[in-house]
Structure formats: C-alpha cells, structure tokens
C-alpha cells in the first residue's frame, strides 16, 4: 500500500493525540507497581484462603488433604463452650455499642456546638483512649476494677469481674471512636438547615429530631458499626477485665489456639470471615444509602 507522506504525517499526529496516557507502552515502573499490588493482595488473602480450604479437610493434619468433609462444622455447632462464648460476645458488643453510641454522639454534638473552659482537656480525654496501647488500657482497667472491688466489698457489696466489667471497659474505648466518627460527619454539616427549621417555628427538640438527627444518622450508624466490630474483635482488654464464666469468643479462640491446633478453629474462622464479609457489604450498602440521603 502506498500512502502519501502528508497522509502518513496526519495519521501519526492523530495517533499521537488519540493515545491517552494509560495506553502508552507500560514502563518498568508501571509493571513493578502492578507486581507489588498483586503480591500485596496475595499476602492479604493467602491466610484467609488457607483457613477456608483446610476447614473442609476431613483429616486432622494441616499438611495432608484427606478429602472434603463438613465434620469440623458439625463438631463446632455441638461445641457448647463456643456457642456460650458467642452469646457472651454478642451481649457485650450489643450493650457496649448502645451505651457508647449514645454517649459518643452526645459529646460529639456538644464539642461541635460549644466553646467552653476546659474544652482542650475534654478533647485530650476523648483522644487518649485511642492513642494508648491496648495492653496499657487493659492493665489500667484491671487495677481499677480490683480497687473498686475492694471498695465495694468494704461497703458490703458483692463485686466480681464478669460480663459487666467487660462491657464497662469496652464502653471506655468505644466512646472515643464513636465521637471521632460522628464529629467527622458533623464537620461537613450545614447549619443553615437547622436555622431554616427554627425559622419555621420548630423548637430545639423538633429541629434535632427532624433535621439534625437524620443528617448525621450515617455518621452515628458508622460509629455504632465500628464500636460493635471493635468490641467483638477485642482480645487484650477483655482478657484482663473478664472473670471466670465470662469467656467471649476471642478469649475462647485464644485458649483453643494456645492449647493446640484443632481443625475446629478453621471452621470457626471460616464462619467468622463469612460473617465479617456480610457486615462489610452491609455497611457499604448503608454508607451508599447514607450518601444519597445526604444529597
């Protein structure tokens, strides 16, 4: 085929203009970046996949695949200690989420609205539980409950470590996380909407109920979900503030791991991975809905 030089040049120019950046031949840097990303994802998912795979292994050993079986799931469902631990975990997470969501939302609203003496102090008090390592917080709460026990015992009251102390401890770290999330939502809040409601003769409570609350609801829900997850996941603080008979699921898993590898943990892990994936999808749906609401 023969083409006149001018057509050729025109084509070249067109080609150069049409080729966007991403269509350029991939450079070495691009390849390395992509390779790194694939390796990171492999790193993230390898442990999860191994657990899921071996939860269906008939044999007891991890090295030998002896056939597909659901026997570890069956054993798991008949393990009363685990069912009890799950029940305890849900009680603790439920109670501490409700309490910390109410307290955290209130203080977030207050901190956003008011300037007052000692605000910096309250701010530090609110951020410290997030910054301080789990183990230090766990130790603090253990000593506190022991001292409180002495004091209450001296006053003639019965007191022991149990589900109640775990809930009190979880609220102590969850308030801060809820407050941070709700404050982030309040940061983009348009106060003209509240003023508009009041111009229409809504009283303070009506304004809050019908304007402020619906607008910050996604933030509150996000905070509550985070609190619930953190509480369900917490091991260290629970470990220090629990008493005999108040074993939660992480405590149960820990003792199973420590006492020896049983394939039941793989089945339990798979179920928990599944549950957390459902939670992730649910929260994403809620957030998307929240976004629309905001608009």
């Amino acid at each position, binding site marked *: 085929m023969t083409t006149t030089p001018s057509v050729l040049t025109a084509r070249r120019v067109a080609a150069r203009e049409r080729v966007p950046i991403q269509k350029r031949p991939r450079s070495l840097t691009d390849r390395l970046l992509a390779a790194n990303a694939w390796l990171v994802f492999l790193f993230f998912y390898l442990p999860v996949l*191994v657990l899921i795979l071996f939860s269906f292994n008939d044999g007891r050993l991890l090295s030998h695949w002896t056939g597909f079986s659901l026997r570890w799931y069956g054993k798991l469902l008949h393990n009363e200690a685990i069912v009890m631990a799950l029940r305890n975990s849900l009680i603790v997470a439920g109670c501490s989420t409700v309490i910390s969501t109410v307290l955290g939302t209130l203080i977030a609203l207050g901190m956003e609205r008011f300037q007052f003496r000692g605000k910096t102090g309250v701010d530090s008090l609110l951020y410290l539980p997030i910054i301080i390592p789990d183990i230090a917080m766990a130790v603090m709460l253990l000593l506190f409950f022991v001292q409180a026990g002495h004091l209450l015992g001296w006053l003639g009251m019965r007191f022991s470590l149990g589900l109640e102390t775990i809930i009190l401890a979880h609220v102590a770290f969850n308030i801060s996380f809820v407050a941070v999330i709700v404050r982030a939502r309040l940061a983009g809040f348009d106060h003209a909407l509240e003023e508009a409601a009041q111009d229409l003769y809504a009283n303070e409570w009506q304004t809050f109920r019908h304007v402020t609350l619906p607008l910050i609801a996604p933030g509150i829900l996000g905070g509550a979900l985070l609190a619930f997850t953190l509480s369900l996941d917490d091991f260290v603080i629970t470990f220090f503030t629990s008493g005999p008979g108040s074993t939660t699921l992480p405590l149960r898993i820990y003792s199973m791991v420590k006492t020896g590898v049983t394939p039941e943990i793989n089945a339990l892990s798979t179920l928990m991975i599944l549950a957390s994936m459902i939670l992730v999808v649910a929260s994403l749906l809620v957030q998307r809905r929240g976004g629309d609401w905001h608009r």
Partner: protein
Amino acid sequence: MTTPIPSAVRRRERVLLATLVGPATFYLLIFFLVPLGIVLTYSFLKRGAYGQLVWEFNLLNYVRVADPLYLSILGRSAFLALANTLLCLVIGYPFAYYIVRQERASVRNFLLVLVMVPFWTNFLIRTYAWRVILGNDGPINTLLLSLGLIDTPLQLLFNDGAVLVGLVYGYLPFMILPLYAAIERIDFSLIEAAHDLYASGWQAFRTVLLPLSMPGVIAGSILVFIPSLGAFVTPDLLGGAKTVMIGNLIQSQFLTVRDWPFGSALSMVLMALVLVATLIYFRKGGKTL
C-alpha cells in the same frame, strides 16, 4: 424568633452543654482517668513477698526497667515496631500509589474494599492463620519438602521474622489508607511539570510526590508504630520465649509473676514512649489521624 431573657438563655445553654458533654466526660473520668491514676500510683509502690502491695513510695520499679534484661526487651519492641513501620511504608506506598493511579473510581473503591475485607476478620484468627502457614506441617514447608528442596521442615515460627510477618500483616492497612488519602489529594499535573523540566522518575518522586504526601506518611507511620510497639497477640502467638515484646512482659508481670507495681511502671514507660511519638507527630504538623 423571639428574644428571651439573656440569663435564661445562658442557663438553658449551660444545661444543654452539661447534658451533651457531661455524661461521656464523667464516664471517661471514672473509667479512664481514675484507672490511669491508679496505675501511676502502683508504679511507685512495692511488691511484697507474696505478691501483695506494700505502701512504700519509691522509684525502684523505674530503676529496674533500666536492667539490661528489660532494656533488651524494650529495645526489641522498639526495633520490631520501627522495622514494621518501615516495611509497611516500603510496601504500602507503591501500593497506595498504584490504587490512586487507577483510572476508574469504581476500580479504586473496589481495590480499597479488597484491602479492608481481611482486615475485618478477628485479629486472633488472622494471626493464627500465619501460625498455620509458617508451621512445620504448614503449606510452605509441605511445598518445599515435596519439591525436594529441603529434607527437614524449616523452623519458620517462633522467631523475630515470624513476629515481623504477623505485624506487617496486621498493620499494613493502617498504613495504606492514610497514604491513599494523602496521595489522592495531590495534583498530578505538578509531577508532569517536573517531567517537563527533565526530572527523572526518581527525582520527581523525591522532590514532588514524596513531600506532598508527607501528611499521609506521618499519619500512617504513627498509626502503625503505636499499636505495634505495645503488641501482645502477635509476639505471643508467633514469637517464642525469646521474642518477647514489652506487651508480653507487662502481661506476665500482671497475670503470671503478679508483680503489679513493676507491671504498672512498665505500662507507664510504654505510655510515655507512645506519647513522645505522638508529640513528635503533632510537632511535624500532621493533622490527619
């Protein structure tokens, strides 16, 4: 709107302030500040012969922290936490950059969710999984044995390396998310401008991209460094008796040795280290937590 009497307004406002800020502040005073005070007090007391408390104020617990045995544990904790932070930075930075450079927003969001999903499963289980993978009869050793590369299983568990793998696995998302947030905000025409001025890829990275993403680097580093300094579960499950970190030391002082005053002093030292790290962070001007 009507104009009510100012003093009544002020009183109502004060009641509202107390109702909003009061409960949580009161809660944290009782269940955070008082416990902190108790630990501080305990750290100056003495342990009796039977593990009981002796009300005798002294600084001996803090002097004991300076014992070479405990200093080496503190040193290992600081080293592992720093190594973890650096590894997360080296792996996480190009990873976050890769996600930011994806053309479509839906792809970027999907990749971020993929980062989050394993992160939402229980921390103990994620750590336990590494015990399975690195174990003597785990997939790595099985593979190497069947390929004939080794005759006896490699001892991959119960060393600093295993602890480091567990730490990176546990805390990498804390590095990736702030880095992503910081890099995403950067105006990339600045990098093209650098290239137009004949900067090489490395020069553009070092003089334009890295300085602009510094808030993310600092935020991510602090979010990884602090929890890994006080890590308890990872060294407990993946490290052996020789790879104790300060978190394990504190735990054993409280639950095994029952030397509560010394455990309290160690907790105070840990908190002081964390506060210093946080202050450095705020000094550097980072605001995105």
